[in-house]
């Protein structure tokens, strides 16, 4: 750990917190349909879209109609992506003449991008045509993020409204999230990334002659000389911007944000990390503004910041430690930080980013449901790799995915005020709304589905050698971590991967599809049910027994509930994976 590293962490979180207020205010104006500076351009586009799609923007929806519209939209766009993938060989914008995507992989990818997961069981530059990247995948980066924002705003309306049974109009929220937020933000970020050297073209891939031809031995034992290298090209900057802003994470290249064409400089790295947190932090401020209690928004944001700090600190510390195996073997490897090297564990990391920015990126991408990576999480030290996994296991509510993070956090808020109510023996209230049996039932459904899918699928994969273990690169606790991480990432709609597991097998493609789908929609539905129920309630005046949700005590209780629920649910699995691996590493064993 170095002063330089600490300064970069402080600079990052300071920028997030400074930008949260203006972004949040802008989001509030957009979703409350108040005037913004983009109205002269976008209002005519919005009206035209409603006319073309026969949407009545003044029509309000109950939670069931809102959820059904979201499902219909998701189904239609998922089918579109599947069809484009399966037919890409015969469609335009395929200069590399890539073959049609195999069916199980096409399903996995369609579900993955529809659910904002962006899990990639394939090498993008050798699998997906430019058309598939743009029409099938980049569009989902906008749509799935816009769906998340719409859902978060619907939840906020459920809290803010009284004695009504409607939550707004899904189609209007979806359109405004896309036109007013994601599109303009993406244009600005794309241009910034291009200025840093991120490529943006539709050219065929370049082939260059190597200065030093290499002799390689193939799997068949034959030796050959490689004299040329293919350098992939493509519309990267435009996809990179929405990949981060929409907390999608699906890379244009296989090495994602570690590739110099996706993330060339320290400044592009900072911009990409900021882009992940920008909208989720702004939405927390919007929550406070839309429910009429700005301090509540800041209290929620404070809880997110505390959890972010705990994760970043642990990961940075773990990755800064020297590898015990090198020490035990008496190898003369200097693992200490110095002006000439980052020190610590640099396996799987870019020397451009070093320990601090790799640990920070890994924490940020899993705090949110992004899943982009600039280092390989599989190569982290056991406890360092546990942090990204734990972040997802907590529900990705630390800033969280675009929209998804906030509504996940609000479910925890409902649980926190419920527990506070139990402690003082009163009916719990949240911003004047009484929390009753149905709200708690739906909250528990939301919280229980998540571990049920992750632990259930992981157990099946571990117990069936022909299915779950056949494509595993490592054994022992590290192998368990790879499987657990895959289902955690899929169910949490994160999309990052421990690299040691080949997930492009029929079992993993299909089972991860199920995990991604149910991890998204089976959690959204109870969340919307809570919102619909809250909207119907009367506001109860605050009294001496009301638990205030604007104080540091509330922030502390919220953090406590999140950590305790996460720890109780997942500690046994983590103790068999990364924690055991850490202890065995100290005893000189590696996997």
């Amino acid at each position: 750990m170095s002063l330089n590293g600490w300064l970069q962490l402080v600079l990052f979180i300071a920028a997030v917190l400074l930008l949260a207020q203006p972004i949040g205010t802008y989001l509030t104006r957009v979703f409350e349909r108040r005037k913004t500076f983009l109205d002269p351009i976008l209002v005519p586009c919005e009206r035209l879209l409603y006319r073309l799609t026969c949407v009545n923007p003044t029509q309000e929806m109950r939670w069931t109609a809102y959820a059904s519209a979201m499902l219909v939209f998701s189904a239609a766009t998922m089918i579109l992506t599947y069809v484009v993938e399966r037919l890409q060989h015969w469609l335009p914008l395929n200069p590399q003449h890539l073959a049609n995507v195999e069916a199980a992989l096409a399903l996995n990818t369609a579900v993955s991008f529809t659910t904002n997961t962006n899990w990639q069981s394939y090498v993008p530059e050798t699998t997906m045509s430019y058309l598939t990247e743009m029409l099938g995948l980049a569009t989902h980066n906008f749509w799935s993020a816009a769906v998340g924002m719409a859902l978060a705003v619907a939840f906020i309306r459920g809290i803010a409204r009284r004695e009504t049974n409607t939550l707004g109009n899904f189609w209007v929220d979806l359109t405004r999230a896309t036109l007013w937020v994601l599109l303009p933000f993406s244009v600005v970020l794309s241009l910034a990334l291009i200025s840093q050297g991120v490529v943006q073209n539709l050219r065929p891939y370049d082939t260059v002659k190597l200065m030093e031809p290499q002799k390689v031995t193939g799997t068949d034992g034959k030796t050959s000389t490689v004299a040329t290298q293919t350098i992939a090209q493509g519309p990267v900057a435009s996809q990179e911007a929405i990949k981060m802003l929409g907390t999608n994470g699906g890379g244009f290249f296989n090495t994602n944000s570690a590739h110099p064409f996706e993330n060339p400089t320290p400044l592009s790295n900072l911009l990409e990390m900021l882009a992940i947190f920008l909208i989720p932090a702004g939405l927390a401020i919007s929550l406070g503004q839309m429910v009429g209690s700005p301090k509540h928004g800041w209290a929620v944001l404070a809880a997110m910041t505390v959890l972010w700090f705990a994760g970043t600190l642990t990961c940075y510390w773990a990755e800064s430690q020297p590898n015990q195996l090198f020490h035990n073997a008496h190898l003369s490897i200097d693992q200490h930080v110095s002006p000439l090297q980052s020190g610590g564990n640099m396996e799987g990391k870019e020397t451009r980013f070093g320990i601090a920015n790799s640990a920070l990126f890994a924490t940020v991408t899993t705090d949110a449901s992004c899943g982009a990576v600039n280092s390989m999480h599989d190569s982290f030290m056991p406890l360092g790799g546990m942090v990204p996994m734990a972040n997802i296991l907590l529900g990705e509510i630390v800033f969280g995915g675009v929209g998804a993070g906030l509504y996940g956090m609000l479910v925890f808020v409902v649980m926190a005020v419920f527990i506070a109510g139990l402690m003082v023996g009163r009916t719990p209230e949240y911003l004047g709304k009484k929390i009753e049996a149905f709200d708690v039932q739906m909250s528990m459904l939301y919280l229980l589905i998540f571990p049920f899918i992750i632990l259930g699928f992981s157990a099946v994969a571990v117990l069936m050698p022909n299915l779950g273990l056949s494509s595993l690169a490592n054994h022992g606790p590290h192998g368990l971590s790879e499987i657990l991480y895959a289902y955690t990432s899929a169910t949490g709609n994160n999309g990052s991967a421990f690299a040691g597991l080949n997930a492009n097998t029929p079992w993993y493609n299909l089972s991860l599809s199920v995990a991604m789908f149910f991890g998204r929609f089976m959690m959204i539905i109870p969340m919307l049910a809570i919102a619909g129920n809250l909207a119907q309630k009367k506001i109860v005046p605050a009294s001496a027994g009301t638990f205030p949700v604007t104080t540091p005590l509330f922030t502390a209780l919220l953090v406590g509930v999140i950590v305790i629920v996460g720890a109780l649910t997942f500690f046994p699995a983590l103790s068999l994976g990364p924690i055991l691996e850490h202890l065995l590493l100290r005893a000189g064993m590696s996997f």
Partner: protein
Amino acid sequence: MYDTIATLMTAIFFTAAFAYIHACEQLKTRPRND
């Protein structure tokens, strides 16, 4: 074969999700005996 599996899985996914909405709504409106 996998095209058929993909089609079936998609149909099952969304049917289950719509049924789930209905089940949550039923849970809210069912008579309570507590």
